[in-house]
C-alpha cells in the first residue's frame, strides 16, 4: 500500500549521474562518480557510508556550494525540475533561503558565538520572509518555531548566546531556524552524531515528527546504519563516491545485496552480542587513481575480471531494489 502512495508523490529533488572531481594543486581527485537518487515530497531519504565516501560533497552539490576547486564532470541536480548548476544567482539564492536548507553535524560551529539567538534567528528569517514583515512578526515566528522543536521557555532561549545552551538545545535551534523559513527540503548532515545517544534519539524523533507533520522531505546523511534504519524510508548506500545499493530501507536492511553493504552490516556491533567481525580488508581507494571498474572491487571477496575493468550499472534486481554489482543475485 505504501508503494502506491510513494509513486504518486511528486519529485522534489533529483540527482542524475552526478560526477564531481576536485583540482588539488593540479592533480585531479575523482570523488563522486555517477551519484543517482531521487527525493519525493514527504519522503525521508538516507545517504549512508563511511567517512570520505562523498556524502557531504553530495549535499554541497545539491545546494551548489561546492568549493572553488570543484569540477562538475557530468550530471545534474534538479531541484523542483530546475538544474541548480544552471540557475541564475537570484534564483539560486531564493532556493537556498526558502527551498532547501542544511542542518549541520556540529551545532556549536553552525551558530555564531558572538550574537544572541534572537539576532541570528531574526536575520535568517528576514531574508526568507516577505520584505514588509515587521521585526515583531519575525520574533513571533521565531518563538513559534522554537516551541515547535520542543524548546520550552522560548523567550529565554531567544535572549541566550549559543554557549549558554547545551548541544541538544543548540541543535534544536538550528532545526527551528531551518524549518521556520518555510523550507521544503531538509539536508540533515549527521544531525545527531556530535550528541549523546539519548539526545540523538530525541533529535531524530523530532526531525521525523516535523517532517511527517509538515509533509517535508529530508535527506538524512549519517555514517551510522542504525540511525538510517530508524529515521528513513528510502536508503542509498554509498562507497567511495558511488551509490552501491538503494531501495526501501526495510528491504535493504532485511535483504542486503551488494557485497559492501553486507560487509558493512557485519562490522556493526550488535546488541545480541555475537562477537565482532574482522572488518573489511584493505582501504578506501585513492581518489587520484580510483579503480577503473567497480570501486569496491579491490576489497571485494567475490570480484571477478569484469569488476576490475568495467563499472557495473546501477540495476534494478527486484522491484524497487537497485544494486551496482554484476553478481548481486549470484553471490549473496
Amino acid at each position: 500500500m505504501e508503494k502506491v502512495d510513494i509513486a504518486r508523490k511528486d519529485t522534489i529533488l533529483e540527482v542524475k549521474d552526478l560526477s564531481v572531481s576536485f583540482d588539488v594543486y593540479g592533480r585531479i581527485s575523482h570523488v563522486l562518480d555517477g551519484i543517482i537518487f531521487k527525493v519525493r515530497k514527504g519522503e525521508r531519504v538516507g545517504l549512508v557510508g563511511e567517512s570520505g565516501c562523498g556524502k557531504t560533497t553530495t549535499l554541497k552539490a545539491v545546494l551548489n556550494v561546492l568549493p572553488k576547486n570543484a569540477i562538475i564532470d557530468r550530471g545534474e541536480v534538479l531541484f523542483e525540475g530546475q538544474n541548480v548548476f544552471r540557475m541564475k544567482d537570484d534564483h539560486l539564492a531564493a532556493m537556498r533561503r526558502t527551498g532547501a536548507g542544511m542542518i549541520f553535524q556540529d551545532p556549536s560551529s553552525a551558530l555564531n558565538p558572538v550574537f544572541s539567538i534572537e539576532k541570528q534567528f531574526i536575520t535568517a528569517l528576514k531574508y526568507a520572509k516577505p520584505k514588509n514583515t515587521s521585526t515583531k512578526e519575525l520574533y513571533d515566528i521565531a518563538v513559534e518555531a522554537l516551541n515547535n522543536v520542543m524548546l520550552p521557555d522560548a523567550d529565554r532561549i531567544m535572549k541566550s548566546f549559543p554557549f549558554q545552551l547545551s548541544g541538544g538545545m543548540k541543535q534544536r535551534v538550528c532545526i527551528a531556524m531551518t524549518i521556520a523559513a518555510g523550507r521544503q527540503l531538509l539536508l540533515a548532515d549527521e544531525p545527531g552524531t556530535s550528541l549523546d545517544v539519548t539526545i540523538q534519539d530525541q533529535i531524530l524523533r523530532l526531525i521525523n515528527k516535523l517532517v511527517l507533520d509538515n509533509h517535508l522531505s529530508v535527506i538524512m546523511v549519517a555514517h551510522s546504519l542504525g540511525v538510517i534504519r530508524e529515521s528513513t524510508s528510502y536508503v542509498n548506500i554509498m562507497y567511495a563516491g558511488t551509490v552501491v545499493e538503494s531501495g526501501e530501507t526495510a528491504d535493504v536492511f532485511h535483504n542486503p545485496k551488494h557485497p559492501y553493504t553486507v560487509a558493512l552490516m557485519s562490522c556493526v556491533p550488535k546488541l545480541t552480542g555475537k562477537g565482532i567481525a574482522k572488518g573489511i580488508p584493505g582501504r578506501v581507494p585513492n581518489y587520484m587513481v580510483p579503480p577503473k571498474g567497480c570501486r569496491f572491487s579491490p576489497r571485494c571477496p567475490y570480484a571477478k575480471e569484469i569488476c576490475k575493468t568495467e563499472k557495473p550499472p546501477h540495476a534494478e534486481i527486484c522491484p524497487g531494489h537497485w544494486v551496482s554489482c554484476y553478481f548481486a543475485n549470484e553471490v549473496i
Partner: protein
Amino acid sequence: MAEKILYIKNLKKYFPLKNNQVVKAVDGVDLELHEGETLGLVGESGSGKSTIAYVLVGMYEATDGDIIYKGDNIAKTGLNRTLKQRGEIQIVFQDPGSSLNSKRIVEKSLMVPLSIHTKMSKADMKKRSRDLLEEVGLPAEFADKYPRTLGGGERQLISVARALATNPSLVILDEPTSALDVSVQAKVISKLIDLQKELQLAYLFITHDLSLMRNVADRVAILYLGRLCEQAPAADFFQKPLHPYTQMLLSSIPVLTAEEEKMKPAKVLSIGEIPSPVNVPPGCAFHLRCRYKKPICMKERPAMKGVSPGHFVCCHLFNDN
C-alpha cells in the same frame, strides 16, 4: 576467579571553580577489576568516565577515596608513582591523530616508553619497537613512517603498541574507536581482543557505544553524573536492565535488525538532558529525567544494592524488596 588487581573504593574527584563552586566530576565510585577481564564503563558526556581514567593513570590526584592496585594505594600519588606502578597501568586515548606526535616517526614514539622503563641499548629498542608493531598486527616497515601517512585505525593500533611497550597488566581504553569508521573499528577491536587473550591484560574499556560494549565487556558499569547507576555481567545487563537510566540508554540505541529491536526494553522515550555537574540535583542524580520517580528520590541518595550475583543497582525502586 582470576586475581583481583584493582579495587576502587568511594573514589571522588572534585574540581574547584573560581566562584567557590565545585564540579563533582566523580562522586563516590566503587569498582573492581580482575586479571584478564574487561570492565566496560559507559556514560554520557560529562558523566566522569574520562576523569576516572585520568585518576587511574595518575594524571589527577583523587580528592578522596582509595585506589588499591596490587596491594598499594595509588589514589593520591598523582604522577609520583614508582616506575613499576606507572608502567603497569597504561592508557590509549580516543584520538590517535593528536595523541601521537606528528613530528616523530612511529619508531621514535614507540621508543619513548622503552627508554624510560627499560635499560635497553638503542639497537635493542629499535628492534623491540618493530616487534611491538608486529604484535599489534602492523608491518614492521611502519616504524619509519610519520603518523599522518597512516589511516586512523593503524594510528590507533600504534597507540596500543606504545601502551604495551611497558608490559602493563591494566590498559585503560578511553573511547579507543569512537573516532573510527565501523569497518576499521571492527579490525581494531578484534585485535584488542586477541591481545587481551595473549597477554592476559585487564581492560577498563570506556565508551558511550552500548552495542560495542555488549561484544567486548565481561562486566558493564553505567555512570551518570559521577555516580554509578548499575553494574552487572554483560549478558545479564543487556537481558534485564534495571535502572531507569539504563533502560533509557538502551532504548535510545539505533539498531540494525529486528532481533536487536526485541532486546530493547519497551520504548522508554528519552527526555531531558544530563544536568551540569556543578549543580548535581539532590537525592538521586537522575530523578529529573526519571519516569518512575517517587518523593524519596528527590531527597535521599539511593545506595548500591545487589539484586542478583554480580548485579548491582543504585535506585530507590529496588531498595525495598
